């Protein structure tokens, strides 16, 4: 397409006249666009906004935990907050529940998944397989707009009289079924809108997943055989299947809960349910356990939807910056497929304390321990990939490097939760919070930051500032750990995740449980010498560390935001289409890539990570360069394989 013109106008936002063939008006080119790159950028911005909003909700919650006796600063005079703060300006339980539920929902469904899968997946996948666009560009646009609609609905629900959803991001029945039922207009309650918005988000994800899988299977360019796909594409393929097959049961659950709320059915309402001392007016006969099964059938694979793109981004950045091939590429591919398969049969490890019976628990313990094997393979391969390399520690590499230990901590602390016995103690404590936030926050989010820094020059034609990048990275690393590391200790001491006034409630309970002599737990604590009488106080003090770190972390995101926006205009211009000297196909396109992506039809001549090939003139041999002398070193077969390998 218009390669030359794209070169001259390197700025992404430089003007609407970049491509002389298309005289599309602004709204068609940047708003209702069917170009996968524009949609990717739309996904990126929207999800970053939602990430910031989710972060804000969490900072209010952290205030309530750290200073339960003080009025919330700055917010107490806002009219909206009047219904949710008490007379002294302190956070009420309702507000905490609402923000807690929405923090989880927004971060997972509106923040990270759209950023990882929607933004990076959309932008990078077609480029890496040498496709002109996604297989169904209009479907792609539809899935973004459905996502935006769902997100807007979630956001609007805060301003309903009932407020947003309050029953936790898991929305367990019967709590979620019965919350806010006294409102006259049941449809316009936050709890109902959560379900409607989820149905929209799920539809969006399903369309997206169909599109991704279809693109990867059918639109690979000439020579791009299965084992020449970059690992990122493999991860996107598996992620696509996870979304495609795991989301529908949640859609079922959302529809059923919607029926429970609006039509008065009893899918999740057991017989004889009492709410606030009154018998609940429903036929009964349903099962709350059913909801949990349907919910976690999605929500566990969702965890891998969160982490696989992150691992994939890191797997692109590490070989590029160590100038070495990815260690164990094939092993990683098979591991990711096994992971995808196992992800579907581990869900009930979230439900050990529901009383679903020992046989099922045993089954899920086994599969849960099994799934740690492919995870460890992936992370070990990444680690070994760095061994002996001469590493370029640029900003993306810093984030990618930090990802590995952070994800490691998150993963390893999950092992005790995999067994039903320790889970009895740790369930719903801050230990669980610490565990999955280590995976998602310093894990996935760091990888996503790495991705932004890494592909920014391709998207805009300019580099992001390294100095601001360092100012962003080091404090973030410090404060991320400041937030989540104390949670493990608090959790092991029994600090419950839903205690809205944090310390006060915890102190009261722990005084009764641990400090009163001769109670069962006090005896155990004394025998094991783990928790002494002063422990609760020490644990409460840790709240300040966590909350303080959270606010400081917010402060140190400012350099990133400045960097993201200012670099578009003042960043250093890239001097080639391939500024990192990388090997994969996205670097073969003009910068920024025009509509239709490639100037001439791309062909993949070799595997994706041919760095430092012996005898090659440079330390990288891109997939898209045909040099017969170099292809000899390729270990991969050139004939396109007829079949998709193994699992997916």
């Amino acid at each position, binding site marked *: 397409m218009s390669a030359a013109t794209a070169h001259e106008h390197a700025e992404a936002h430089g003007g609407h006249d970049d491509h002389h063939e298309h005289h599309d008006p602004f709204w068609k080119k940047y708003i209702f666009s069917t170009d996968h790159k524009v949609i990717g950028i739309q996904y990126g911005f929207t999800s970053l906004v939602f990430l910031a909003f989710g972060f804000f909700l969490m900072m209010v919650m952290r205030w309530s935990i750290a200073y339960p006796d003080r009025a919330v600063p700055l917010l107490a005079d806002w009219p909206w907050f009047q219904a949710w703060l008490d007379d002294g*300006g302190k956070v009420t339980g309702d507000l905490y529940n609402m923000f807690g539920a929405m923090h989880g929902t927004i971060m997972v469904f509106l923040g990270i998944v759209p950023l990882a899968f929607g933004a990076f997946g959309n932008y990078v996948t077609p480029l890496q397989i040498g496709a002109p666009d996604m297989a169904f560009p209009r479907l792609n646009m539809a899935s973004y707009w459905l996502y935006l609609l769902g997100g807007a609905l979630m956001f609007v629900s805060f301003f309903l009289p009932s407020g947003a959803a309050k029953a936790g991001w898991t929305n367990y029945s019967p709590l979620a079924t019965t919350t806010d039922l006294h409102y006259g207009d049941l449809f316009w309650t936050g709890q109902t809108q959560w379900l409607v918005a989820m149905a929209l988000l799920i539809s969006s994800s399903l369309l997206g997943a169909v599109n991704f899988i279809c693109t990867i299977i059918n639109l690979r360019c000439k020579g791009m055989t299965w084992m020449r796909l970059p690992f990122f594409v493999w991860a996107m393929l598996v992620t696509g299947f996870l979304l495609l097959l795991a989301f529908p049961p949640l859609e079922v659950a959302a529809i059923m809960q919607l029926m429970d709320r609006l039509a008065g059915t009893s899918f999740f309402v057991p017989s004889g349910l009492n709410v606030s001392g009154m018998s609940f007016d429903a036929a009964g006969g349903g099962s709350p356990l059913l909801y949990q099964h349907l919910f976690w059938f999605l929500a566990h694979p969702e965890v891998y939807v969160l982490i696989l793109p992150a691992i994939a981004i890191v797997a692109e950045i590490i070989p590029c910056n160590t100038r070495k091939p990815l260690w164990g590429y094939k092993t990683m591919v098979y591991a990711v497929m096994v992971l995808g398969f196992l992800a579907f049969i581990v869900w009930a490890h979230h439900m050990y304390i529901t009383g679903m019976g020992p046989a099922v628990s045993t089954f899920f313990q086994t599969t849960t321990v099994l799934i740690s094997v492919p995870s460890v393979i992936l992370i070990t391969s990444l680690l070994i990939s760095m061994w002996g390399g001469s590493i370029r520690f640029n900003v993306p590499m810093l984030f990618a490097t930090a990802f590995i230990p952070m994800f490691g901590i998150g993963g390893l602390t999950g092992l005790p939760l995999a067994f039903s016995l320790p889970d009895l103690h740790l369930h719903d404590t801050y230990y669980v919070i610490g565990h999955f936030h280590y995976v998602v926050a310093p894990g996935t989010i760091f990888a996503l930051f790495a991705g932004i820094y890494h592909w920014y020059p391709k998207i805009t034609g300019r580099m992001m500032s390294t100095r601001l990048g360092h100012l962003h990275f080091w404090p973030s690393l410090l404060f991320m750990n400041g937030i989540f590391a104390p949670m493990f200790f608090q959790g092991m001491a029994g600090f419950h995740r839903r205690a809205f006034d944090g310390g006060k409630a915890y102190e009261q309970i722990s005084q009764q449980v641990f400090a009163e002599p001769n109670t069962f737990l006090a005896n155990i604590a004394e025998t094991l010498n783990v928790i002494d009488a002063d422990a609760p106080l020490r644990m409460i003090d840790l709240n300040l560390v966590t909350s303080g770190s959270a606010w400081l972390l917010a402060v140190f995101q400012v350099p990133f935001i400045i960097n993201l926006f200012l670099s578009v205009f003042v960043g250093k211009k890239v001097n080639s289409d391939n500024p990192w000297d990388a090997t994969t196909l996205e670097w073969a396109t003009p910068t920024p890539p025009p509509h239709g992506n490639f100037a001439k039809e791309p062909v993949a001549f070799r595997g994706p990570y041919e760095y430092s090939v012996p005898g090659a003139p440079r330390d990288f041999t891109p997939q898209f360069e045909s040099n017969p002398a170099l292809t000899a070193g390729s270990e991969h077969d050139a004939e396109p394989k007829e079949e998709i390998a193994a699992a997916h």
Partner: protein
Amino acid sequence: MEIPYEVTPRRDTGLYNAKLGVWLFLASEVMLFGGLFSAYVFLRLGVQEGVDNPWPWGVSVHKDFVWLGAINTIVLIASSVGVVFAWVALKERNWRRYQIYMYSVVACAVIFMCIKSVEYYSKLTQHHGIKLVDNSVMEGKILDKTDRIRFSGEKLTFSLQGAVPAAIRDFDGENFPKFKVTEGPEELVGAEISSMSQFKSWFSDGRRLVTNQLTEERRRFRGEMAAGTENPKPVSVVSSVTLTAAEPFGVTGNPRKIMAHSESAINYRDGVKVEGKLVSDEVQFEVHEVDLQLVLPTKQRESVVWSVINDEPAKKQFFDAQHKKYEELLEYYKDHGGVIPESQLRGRFLNVQYVHVAAEGHEGGHGKEDKHADVHTSETNPTAGGGEHEGAHGPSRILSVPRDQIKFMGNHGPRYGTYYAIYFTMTALHGLHVVGGALVLLFFVVFGKKLYLKNPEHLANRVEVGGLFWHFVDLIWIFLFPIMYLL
């Protein structure tokens, strides 16, 4: 660069994009309906005997609907055959035949949805049930929406801090009553309201006023607290308002939204109170069947249901029928182990019997001491019991069921039990698929001519892909029909 493989299949996968996309979409649909079927199995197996509402086991309860379901199955199969023949017609480049087949497919979809609506209408308006306090159930029909609470209101009291009161949706008649604000914040007292839209704008103004007052008060309170004032005056803002109507207005209250009601007031769940006079809260019911599955066999003769029905012949009718079936079971189990299993003893076979309460002055209408003034009669013949009880016994007496004896009541809508819930959810979702699929196919035939002339193969591909979806919809129905209607 054009997007490749839009019409021609890729060599190694053997698929063009749209076909692969639809198959993937169908995979997710398999999971969607898989989740629903899982829920079906889970809910059905999870019924606790004697606690949960039993599932209507087998055809005995909805024989009338089996034929509708069977006809629908045939209609869908016919439409599936139509789609494949339409595709063949396109492959043979015969536009006329393609049109005929496609339109007949869409017609099938319309017939399917019509039959479905008949079924829904019948379930939602013709069949009701009342569960009494001891879990005995009367099946029959609630007359004239008498499950609602009829009330004549004079005053409406609610808070300006919450949502718009639910009660205003229950007002009778076209005209919104003329209200005057008699109590509440000073600024609002005296205002007059005479329409729904006026009420809504008045309400949001009032809410803003109260919120602002609250913000001010709290700012003062926090200021005094921070300044160390001893015993600062607590925050107090009047947010409750009372509206008095010029003349009494009718209220037909939905019991699900009402927490309690008395002769002089209704308390809604959202805290709204309507004061006035109760007009009537009697539930009028025509009983067709008595279901004692949830009552212990030893307690059945003393069940509350008999004091509500208050008719000896009807009671005798029930237990005679039960005894006859018991003998039948004994006969069968004599050769099969000698013991009647628990599930049979507590099941529908023994414990659900047809009951006819004859109206006064008709055959069987004797033995009633209670000469209640409002005994109505109905000339309709009960049909819910199915064909076995045809030609039954003249008009029925309409029971007046006291509200305090009722634990749960409603039509056979999704609310009535987990079977009805999953029935309505699955068939409605399936119906949505039928409508969606039919619209797409209709699009292909109405607007397909241009593409047909340009690239008939592309249109054939589209029809094939739309057909794949349509067959899937048929396939789901193939499973839905037996598990929802027959087994």
